[in-house]
């Protein structure tokens, strides 16, 4: 790495570090929860690098624990991850000139937090040809913290009593991510309709509630946003 590249890489690390305040507790809880869901320590730890997505891993572990079919587990996680297509599209014009190896690595590292931090850099830097080093730094930082947090969670899981209800930290994390962003009617309607379908959809066969809730929430939000934009 040249010194300019190195500086950009380090900047990515520095910009990503503050977000780890939210990522690390989530990783710890996932480690604890994976074991509580009946996954082995190895399965829990490796899921953090194979699946590598917070909400995906939690849903995977919880559905797997209830005995959901592989098809339902897979489609539920797939729906959750559709959002990454937005990120992929947003960074595409910056990454397209890169070699295949770079694109594969950065594709793997393109998480919510890495995207949130590095897209700002892509859009404001005066050296866009170096900006992929920023994404590499921010993506790797998150990856390393996520792996360490998972391992610590798995190790600590055995000693943490169930009464602490640590699993509750996961919906709490999601609340902090979702609630402050419910500004438009379409956002609130998407959230409410998805929540209601999830609750009343528990009777649906094959644990289909999460896919059903997602489809309804996305449809309601999308249609209402059309109306909002026209108004």
């Amino acid at each position, binding site marked *: 790495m040249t010194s300019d590249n190195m500086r950009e890489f380090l900047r990515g690390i520095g910009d990503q570090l503050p977000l780890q305040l939210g990522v690390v507790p989530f990783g710890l809880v996932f480690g604890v929860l994976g074991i509580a869901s009946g996954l082995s320590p190895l399965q829990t730890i490796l899921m953090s690098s194979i699946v590598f997505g917070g909400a995906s891993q939690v849903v995977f572990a919880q559905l797997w624990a209830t005995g959901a079919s592989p098809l339902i587990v897979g489609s539920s996680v797939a729906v959750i991850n559709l959002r990454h297509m937005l990120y992929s599209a947003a960074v595409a014009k910056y990454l397209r000139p890169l070699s295949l190896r770079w694109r594969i690595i950065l594709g793997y590292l393109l998480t919510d937090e890495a995207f949130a931090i590095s897209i700002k850099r892509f859009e404001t830097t005066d050296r866009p040809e170096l900006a992929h080093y920023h994404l590499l730094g921010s993506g790797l930082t998150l990856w390393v913290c996520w792996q360490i947090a998972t391992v610590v969670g798995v190790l600590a899981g055995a000693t943490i009593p169930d009464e602490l209800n640590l699993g509750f930290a996961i919906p709490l994390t999601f609340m902090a991510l979702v609630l402050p962003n419910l500004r438009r009617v379409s956002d609130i309607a998407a959230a409410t309709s998805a929540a209601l379908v999830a609750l009343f959809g528990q009777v649906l066969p094959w644990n289909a509630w999460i896919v059903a809730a997602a489809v*309804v929430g*996305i449809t309601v939000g999308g249609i209402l*946003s059309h109306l909002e934009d026209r108004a």
Partner: protein
Amino acid sequence: MIWIVMILTGLANFAVRFSMFSGLRASTLPDWAERYLRYVPTAVLSAIIATALFLDEAGDIQIWNTTVLAGLIAAIIAILTRSVIFTIITGLGVLWIIG
């Protein structure tokens, strides 16, 4: 079996993230896709939040218990602070104190 599902899920996740700069297809999303995809996190995360707050261990809907109360107080903190860590501390704290 779980390993196969995990690896396929991981590959699917990667494929979505990689899709728009894979070089194999158009690298822009149609406007309608972008419009609908924006609601994915809200819908999915709200569904997970709702089941965690309002379903008891038997899977029945509860509209008022300690979990709901802890969630409501944490929701206020989430909106006011936008902070993951403060929201976790508040929600778990309330649950531990009254639970």
